[in-house]
């Protein structure tokens, strides 16, 4: 038990970076702003989620109370949180149990599989509170205050909220552990990540589609979502009974409440124990099943098919290969480009008779077409800039950056290859949105090249800004590709700066429309303004590349 507790402590230390923070506070004070900024960002994000769910839950509670079903607000919160935990849990468990780097030194230690698995599981529960608490706490507070509940309610509420992640995560763990027993991880790791990411994307988009359908009707506000008939509790109960046990356990008084409350707690403990038992039997077997017994086919090297490329082409190709072959880089880099057009198509398809219908009408009218064209331009710029490819471009090289430092290719050429790579990705988004505009909004093919050029210039400016951000402070010290993109602040800064540029260009365009400038004059102004920014941007980028490639030490 002592070892188990120590392992949990170690995992929490690593996950929260406690030792790193201590080091920063005592020795490396120069970089202290990084954790502080991350903490502020987390508090802000957490606060926003909390406020959002509070407003939603309050509206839901009022409506449900009028219908005489106030406790359904708890059921919705518990079910919603459980669904998210179950869904994200599968991803998180896969990466924590099977793909994390610390397993290499944990497995040879004299630890039982359940100890390794259990410590990681508990650490994950702490992480999942970030998702669960903002969803559930508002409902608990609103219901508790609204129904003037007593002390027992709050105690039961607290215990239920804290143990809420156990059941969905234990179910995900059991599923993943059994599944991985039959999959060769080492051979299929990349495929699994890509597959899971796409499944996640499809589910996410499916949910978006469902919500769009739901609110498509008239009076699309909270009443529609919360006009839930009495059978809702039964439906929820049938699909995921623990959400109902939690609801009744917390909301109902006396023996009935206690019965459900203890049922919920007992099942949580039982599933946790079952997970540890199954883990003890199957965890290491699945983890170590990566050996490759198959006879290898001898591959013949085709020396004659070799091609000589210029350094800049070779670097450009390297960027593509490294992005597309690392699932984490690919999904984080290209998700925006893929998701945005799909969401636009969904909106166009599902809402053709509503607001979108009006947009189509406006696009046909010569007087109002300019609004639609500029709106389309905005979507083009947004789609092309909603990625972190350029802002993590140097960071993704990680410890391999030494190669970029020693090769006899000037920093200018190296940064230009990254610039072309970023632009190529943006171009895909621009072309796609442009085609949608032609198909759905009857935009003239003659005007489209003008929009293309302005959008391309805009995305070039954003790419330059992103590259400058990564040049200033690249995150090269990472052991897991996730760190290079997901926990890299440069990605966030890049998106903020992109939004800043986007806001500027939007205000500029709206201002020109308000002052009733002619359409061609607006395009020409945007073109020249972008041209000036682009030239200045390239000049700064190349100068900075010379300086930073020399000064970044590795």
């Amino acid at each position: 038990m002592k070892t188990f507790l120590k392992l949990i402590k170690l995992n929490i230390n690593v996950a929260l970076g406690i030792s790193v923070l201590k080091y920063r506070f005592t020795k490396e004070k120069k970089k202290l702003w990084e954790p502080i900024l991350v903490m502020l960002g987390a508090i802000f994000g957490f606060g926003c989620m909390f406020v959002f769910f509070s407003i939603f839950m309050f509206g839901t509670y009022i409506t449900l109370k009028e219908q005489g079903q106030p406790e359904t607000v708890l059921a919705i919160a518990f079910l919603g949180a459980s669904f998210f935990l179950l869904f994200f849990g599968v991803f998180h468990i896969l990466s924590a149990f099977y793909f994390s780097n610390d397993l290499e030194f944990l497995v040879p230690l004299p630890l039982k599989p359940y100890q390794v698995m259990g410590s990681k599981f508990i650490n994950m529960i702490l992480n999942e509170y970030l998702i669960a608490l903002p969803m559930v706490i508002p409902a608990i507070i609103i219901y508790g205050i609204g129904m003037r509940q007593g002390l027992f309610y709050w105690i039961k509420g607290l215990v239920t909220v804290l143990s809420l992640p156990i059941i969905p995560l234990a179910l995900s763990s059991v599923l993943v552990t059994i599944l991985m027993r039959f999959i060769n991880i080492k051979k299929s790791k990349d495929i699994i990540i890509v597959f899971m990411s796409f499944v996640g994307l499809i589910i996410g988009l499916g949910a978006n589609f469902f919500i769009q359908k739901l609110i498509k009707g008239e009076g699309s506000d909270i009443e529609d979502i919360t006009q839930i008939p009495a059978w809702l509790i039964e439906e929820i109960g049938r699909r995921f009974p623990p959400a109902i046990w939690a609801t009744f356990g917390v909301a109902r008084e006396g023996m009935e409440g206690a019965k459900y409350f203890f049922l919920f707690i007992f099942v949580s403990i039982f599933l946790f124990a079952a997970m540890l038992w199954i883990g003890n039997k199957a965890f290491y077997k699945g983890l170590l099943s990566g050996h490759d017994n198959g006879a290898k086919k001898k591959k013949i090297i085709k020396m004659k098919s070799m091609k000589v490329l210029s350094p800049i082409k070779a670097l450009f190709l390297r960027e593509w290969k490294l992005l597309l072959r690392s699932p984490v880089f690919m999904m984080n880099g290209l998700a925006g480009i893929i998701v945005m057009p799909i969401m636009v198509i969904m909106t166009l398809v599902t809402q053709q008779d509503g607001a979108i219908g009006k947009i189509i009408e406006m696009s046909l009218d010569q007087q109002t077409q300019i609004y639609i064209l500029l709106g389309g331009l905005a979507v083009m710029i947004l789609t092309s800039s909603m990625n972190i490819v350029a802002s993590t471009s140097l960071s993704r090289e990680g410890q391999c950056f030494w190669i970029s430092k020693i090769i006899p290719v000037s920093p200018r050429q190296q940064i230009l290859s990254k610039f072309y790579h970023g632009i190529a990705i943006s171009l895909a988004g621009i072309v796609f949105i442009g085609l949608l505009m032609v198909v759905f909004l009857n935009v003239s093919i003659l005007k489209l090249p003008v929009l293309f050029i302005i959008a391309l210039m805009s995305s070039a400016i954003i790419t330059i800004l992103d590259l400058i951000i990564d040049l200033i402070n690249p995150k090269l010290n990472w052991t897991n590709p996730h760190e290079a993109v997901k926990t890299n602040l440069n990605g966030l800064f890049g998106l903020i700066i992109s939004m800043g540029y986007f806001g500027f260009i939007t205000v500029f365009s709206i201002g020109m429309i308000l002052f009733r400038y002619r359409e061609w004059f607006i395009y020409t102004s945007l073109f020249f303004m972008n041209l000036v920014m682009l030239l200045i941007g390239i000049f700064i980028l190349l100068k900075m590349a010379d300086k930073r490639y020399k000064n970044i030490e590795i």
Partner: protein
Amino acid sequence: MLEIKDLSKSYKKGTIKAVDGMTFDVKPGEIFGFLGPNGAGKTTTIKMIIGLLNPDSGSIKIKGFDNSIDTIEAKKRIGYVPDNPDVYDKLTGMEYLNFMADVYGVSLEKRQERIEYFLKMFSLEEAATDIIKSYSHGMKQKIVLTGALIHEPDLWILDEPLVGLDPKSAHLLKDLMRKHCEKGNSVFFSTHVLEVAEKLCDRIGIVNKGKLIAIGTLEELKKGDTADSLENIFLELTEK
């Protein structure tokens, strides 16, 4: 071939002197061994020569090109192998070698000839089309070595090149080093294996606490010392 003058590098605002006023040169046709205990400043010196770190003061010239002024020209003349072979693990061995050949501007005929030669020598022909991630430490070391030598550089700079290599490959590498120097080129390498330095090096530099404390041929080092082997000379000098 390599001239180093008054080279210094410190960390933590000058409190830790990693390299302290180092001056030496490596002549054409020479294998130069760079020895020293852990943390003596060997890797820091090497990293400054190839441009991974910037010196606080001093100069480094490679075949007459100052590496802080004629950076590209200096880089063209170096082939570097780090102590830890971190390479793009999502590329295949072949893609990595072609990438290196492209950035060093190696012609098609030359690269075909050299890739074939090295892959055969290191028994990497079958693995060359696999991604580098699937390689063992030794295989990675060999592919990095091949990538570093593909442009036939004048000066090889190798940081602990024998670590991770099997005996056959280590023997082949030592042979290669000798042949390379016979053509008038040079090899500068760091090592902990004193026997290798003793047998292979034309001259040896011993570094301790950032300072070059001894330099010369094995005979020259023995002259000023009572010790009879490089191991004893090394221990006596570094434990002073």
